[in-house]
């Protein structure tokens, strides 16, 4: 029996998708009978004294491994206290790395100095995130992949709910419901989704396609490419776009606001297709897509970052990918292909194999599947950490000394950004 110290914020994360991830990861570890889990709270709201207390409790527990389950707060302040106190018994350290790795270079750099000589594993949620992270790791260290898990008790095929949801939406049997769940955000390309759906409706003259958007607007902007936003700015942008549509189109686009995650279970049953056009810099996976697919919902997705994980060899028709490339000034989505995807999926109509979609997705993304993957990772001999790669050093230098590290003087996307984020596109 190995003793694993699981370190995470007992309080839910501000990021809705991350709320689920951490607790589901924990469930995956819990399923492993060879592990004794000890839980330690490390959260933003803790005082310095409380962090010291947590650190002391971890050291006293003499764990075989420290598992950093959460992405926030960054583990640096805690490990700065824990690691020097550990003495000769050096536990293995397992980091679950999220999409925000690229926002915290300075913290990782400082942590690297403490990690030297420790056996360290970095676990990411998708192949593309692995490709990205491996650039920062020294050979022979390489990240492991374990998708963020979905709890089948929360998201699985449940046709009984479909009728209820469609009644609530006021849809008829032959209506086709596209759904987007997540933040309404510039990097999630909500504006492109609205425009393309409107163009699709106008061109196809379809009278029974609807788009339901669940989520609140944010004001994150796209700071890596020099776009900042004030609260309300992005809402006004998409509201102006929406108001520019004809009354007929407006009547088919439904802004539903934010709902509790549990309500999405019914939403995914009622819907016919998930659409997610994200080109977010942190798009290491796509928790909402995983939950939707485990509910049996097919999807139209941008071929960007971790969203590429949602391709299934046995059911290729389940996911339609929209090509993305890193352009001069921003990430570019192939607009024509979005329209084609709407056309094709609408023409095809309701899929009959939703149970199968759910089963295929759960086989890869369920808590149980994730538990097996983690067990395999744990079984492997970890490598000793020697520091991050020279590429990491290069990026760090730029990030420290430049106001806009990813932009050229003429405000176009620079080589450094492309070197990092080429991992997120298919044919860089």
């Amino acid at each position: 029996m190995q003793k694993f110290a699981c370190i995470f914020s007992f309080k839910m994360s501000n990021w809705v998708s991350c709320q689920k991830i951490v607790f589901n990861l924990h469930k995956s570890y819990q399923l492993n009978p060879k592990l004794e889990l000890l839980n330690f709270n490390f959260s933003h709201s803790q005082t310095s004294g409380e962090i010291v207390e947590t650190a002391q409790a971890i050291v006293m527990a003499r764990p075989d491994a420290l598992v950093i389950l959460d992405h926030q707060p960054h583990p640096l302040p805690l490990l700065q206290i824990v690691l020097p106190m550990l003495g000769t018994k050096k536990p293995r350290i397992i980091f679950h790395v999220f999409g925000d790795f690229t926002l915290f270079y300075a913290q990782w750099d400082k942590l690297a100095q403490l990690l030297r000589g420790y056996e360290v594993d970095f676990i990411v949620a998708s192949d593309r995130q692995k490709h990205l992270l491996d650039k920062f790791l020294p050979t022979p260290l390489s990240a492991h992949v374990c998708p963020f898990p979905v709890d089948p008790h929360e998201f699985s095929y449940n046709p009984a709910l479909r009728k209820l949801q469609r009644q609530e939406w006021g849809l008829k049997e032959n209506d086709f419901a596209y759904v987007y769940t997540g933040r309404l955000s510039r990097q999630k390309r909500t504006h492109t989704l609205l425009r393309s759906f409107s163009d699709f409706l106008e061109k196809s003259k379809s009278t029974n396609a609807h788009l339901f958007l669940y989520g609140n607007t944010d004001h994150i902007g796209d700071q890596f490419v020099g776009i900042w936003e004030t609260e309300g700015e992005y809402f006004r942008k998409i509201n102006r776009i929406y108001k520019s549509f004809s009354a007929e189109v407006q009547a088919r686009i439904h802004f539903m606001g934010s709902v509790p995650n549990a309500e999405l279970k019914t939403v995914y049953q009622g819907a016919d297709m998930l659409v997610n056009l994200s080109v977010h810099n942190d798009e290491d996976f796509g928790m909402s897509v995983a939950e939707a697919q485990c509910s049996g919902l097919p999807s139209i997705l941008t071929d960007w970052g971790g969203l590429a994980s949602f391709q299934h060899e046995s059911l290729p028709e389940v996911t339609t990918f929209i090509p993305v490339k890193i352009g001069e000034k921003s990430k570019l989505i192939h607009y024509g292909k979005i329209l084609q995807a709407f056309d094709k999926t609408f023409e095809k109509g309701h899929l009959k194999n939703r149970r199968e979609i759910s089963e295929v997705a759960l086989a890869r993304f369920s808590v149980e599947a994730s538990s097996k993957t983690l067990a395999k990772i744990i079984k492997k001999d970890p490598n000793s950490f020697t520091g991050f790669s020279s590429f990491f050093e290069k990026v760090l230098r730029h990030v420290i000394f430049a106001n806009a590290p990813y932009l050229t003087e003429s405000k176009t996307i620079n080589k450094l950004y492309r070197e990092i984020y080429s991992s997120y596109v298919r044919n860089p």
Partner: protein
Amino acid sequence: MYEILKEQFKSGKSLTQSKYYSTVKRELWPKFFWDLYPLAQEYYHELNPYFLFNLYRPEFFKFTPVITVRDGYVPFANFLLNNFQNFSKLDSNVFLIHPELAPIIPEPLKKHFGAWNIVQKKQLTLQTAKKVIIFGFVCDQYLGEADDFMKCFSALKEIHPDTPVELYLPIRKNVLDLNGKESLAIHHLMDVLKDLLPGRKFKILSTETFFSVSNFKDCYVFDLALDKFYVSDNYLHYYLQSRGATVNNDSHLVAPKDSIFSLDLSIHHELHVGPLPEVKNIFTELLFYKKQNTFVKDFNFDATFQGMLRNLLKKHP
């Protein structure tokens, strides 16, 4: 006015836009702005929502033809007393104010002003809400006299006995006060809340917890503000209504009949612009006070002025 609003809307230009962030030197804003957290955070819409007390250069008044005024009645009265004689020099065409500030507009300047109102078509009541949050910026100036709490907050008795009640009560000093006297408001307030809602278990919210919630659709937020002393456009109301909450801020259920222009502030609430309401004017009283008290340099911090203004507005709502 409609044409000016339309032109402003089309341009969308606002000092709060991120592209103008570095144009404004926030270190030159009055210090009390920072003490107003979380009432006064910046947000954007095309009619340029801004605090006049933050416009530290005349050029900013010329930046756009429209400003949606966010100031409460104390800083707004201070602004008028300082600028009414040279108002034309500000060169801003339209100021949009909350209707409750209308009594203090000098008659000759009325042509420069319009009124904004909030419309929220779906609203809950204290009885029908699934959750009630009681909010107060806990200091004397925001809440008023402790002796009046029971009467002012008596509506809270309407909350259904099974409805959970949460308290978000950040404790603050009196922001517009030179004396910095110790406030006992929180103690009086808790006494009153316990009397109004006997036997209730309150969940106390920290700022972090409060802002970590993204869905307030079934929630009624009862703001304990006595009136619009500091701000007339409270950021917290914007934040909550954007996420579906109902707030006791007299938002209309339908568009006012005299609304000439509107825009959506969120999927849940709208801003409507119309003419100033016809109300009794009290500016002459303010002017008289100014002439009698020539030594007062800043009416924002004059307790006598604040008290007089509060009473005058109460008398002539």
